[in-house]
């Protein structure tokens, strides 16, 4: 159950932190239509995070941070708002600060292509909750993939400026993508080892790049620290700042009702 909980946390934290970054776009998009779309993406991932955090807590109640006696804070919130940065299991791609619109497009493309492949296979999980989350999530991720893929193509073939910005974002974010499909064989009885979707992910990305006429970046993967990465709780310097903001109200009121 501890392994299952850890696995769920990985999937949950990816969604939660991506959702937080996407929601930062609110009221800042190029057009109102994009504002609505970005909020939709954030809401989808937030919904996935909530279900997965609840599943993690149910699988292993011991992972839920302790709160003052009688606190009405539910497990999903205890996990979201009362863990330290080093206890978050998300990939580093999800946490790096927002850049321009090309940045959000590229990040979402890399993220959603990989998550789609994982969730698609997770629909067959023996764990009914995970299977249900995956079944619903696959539809959402399919939209995220399409949305980011369409914009990737648009920016690639739009203007010279959009092409330049797209390449810059791709260059910056490409190095983070390894973590999305790094091996995690711990729960292969109910989970999906991301390394098994690596080839499928690559094929989709290859196709998007080819259609858009963008060359595949040659940069290697970002090193970890002593071989530890985001999933191991070793993050970039940005996550603790994101959490300082995200958690501030909840932490000021550990017995609060909201």
């Amino acid at each position, binding site marked *: 159950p501890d392994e299952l909980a850890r696995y769920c946390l990985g999937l949950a934290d990816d969604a939660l932190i991506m959702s937080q970054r996407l*929601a930062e776009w609110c009221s800042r998009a190029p057009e109102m239509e994009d504002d609505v779309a970005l909020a939709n993406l954030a809401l989808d991932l937030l919904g996935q995070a909530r279900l997965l955090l609840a599943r993690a807590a149910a699988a292993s109640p011991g992972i839920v941070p302790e709160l003052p006696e009688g606190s009405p804070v539910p497990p999903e919130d205890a996990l979201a708002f009362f863990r330290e940065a080093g206890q978050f299991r998300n990939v580093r791609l999800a946490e790096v600060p927002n850049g321009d619109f090309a940045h959000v497009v590229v990040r979402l493309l890399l993220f959603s292509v990989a998550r789609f492949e994982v969730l698609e296979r997770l629909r067959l999980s023996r764990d009914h909750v995970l299977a249900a989350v995956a079944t619903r999530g696959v539809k959402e991720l399919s939209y995220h993939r399409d949305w980011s893929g369409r914009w990737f193509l648009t920016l690639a073939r739009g203007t010279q*400026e959009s092409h330049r910005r797209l390449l810059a974002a791709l260059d910056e974010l490409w190095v983070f993508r390894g973590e999305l499909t790094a091996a995690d064989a711990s729960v292969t009885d109910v989970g999906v080892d991301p390394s098994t979707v690596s080839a499928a992910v690559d094929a989709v990305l290859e196709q998007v790049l080819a259609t858009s006429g963008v060359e595949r970046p040659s940069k290697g993967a970002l090193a970890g620290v002593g071989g530890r990465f985001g999933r191991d709780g070793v993050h970039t310097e940005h996550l603790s700042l994101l959490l300082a903001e995200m958690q501030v109200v909840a932490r000021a009121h550990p017995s609060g*009702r909201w």
Partner: protein
Amino acid sequence: MTDSAVEAHFDEVIARHDRIEPRDWMPDAYRRTLVRQIAQHAHSEIIGMQPEGNWISRAPSLRRKAILLAKVQDEAGHGLYLYSAAETLGVSRDELVDNLLTGKQKYSSIFNYPTLSYADVGTIGWLVDGAAICNQVPLCRTSYGPYGRAMIRICKEESFHQRQGYELLMTMMRGTPEQQEMVQESVNRFWWPSLMMFGPPDENSPNSERSMAWGIKRNSNDDLRQKFVDMTVPQADALGICLPDPSLAWNASREHYDFGEPDWDELAAVIRGDGPCNAQRIEHRRRAHEDGAWVREAATAFAAGGEIGD
């Protein structure tokens, strides 16, 4: 139809409280008044995303984060309907955005007040959306069709938002003493600005009369303000908070609540541009618009079939 015939048709539609549609003839002043009002309303939705949006990143529960994000998203949606309604009157979205950024058109001054705690999210839902609904429900019957129909949809969603705001405050009032204080402090800040949302007193509201004759506006500022106060006082009692007005009292002879006078000087300062957040709100919008320029250009170029080499 002849000129006088179309004019008679217009007058007749107005008289029987029916809808004018985009293709109908309408007086220029009617069109201008409508554009101004719809645009101001649309701008208010778009600028109104900021004060609440300020707390999305810090929502204290994931459920509240989802509710708040969806609400702010709805405001973007309302902005969209309303810009579309304005476009039926022959103005483009670009013009409207430009009018907002250059200050040629206004938005509701309430959004020039800062949000300073999470309770403000609830208070805005309860009081600000509440006041907006009082203003807007009559507009569902406004004489211009596209505007009226947009308002029907918007009012439905606003009511939902108002209930959510009230529910947040109610939940917080059942929480810790610090949360209760937070709610009271928030209501103290937003009460008077909410009353000012109904506009100046009737005797100082020069445009009201004509708008009412045209069926664009259906109630006077002071009537709506009174209605809002009457509706809100019992809700405040149910919450267990105190509205910050010592003059507030039931007047049995009027069968209405008496209440004090808002600080019209402060409102004038805020309308003049010296409110706590006027510059910040417009700067935020201008930056979003400028930062998005290259994306809009790229989308246009792509749609036009443009393709660039490496």
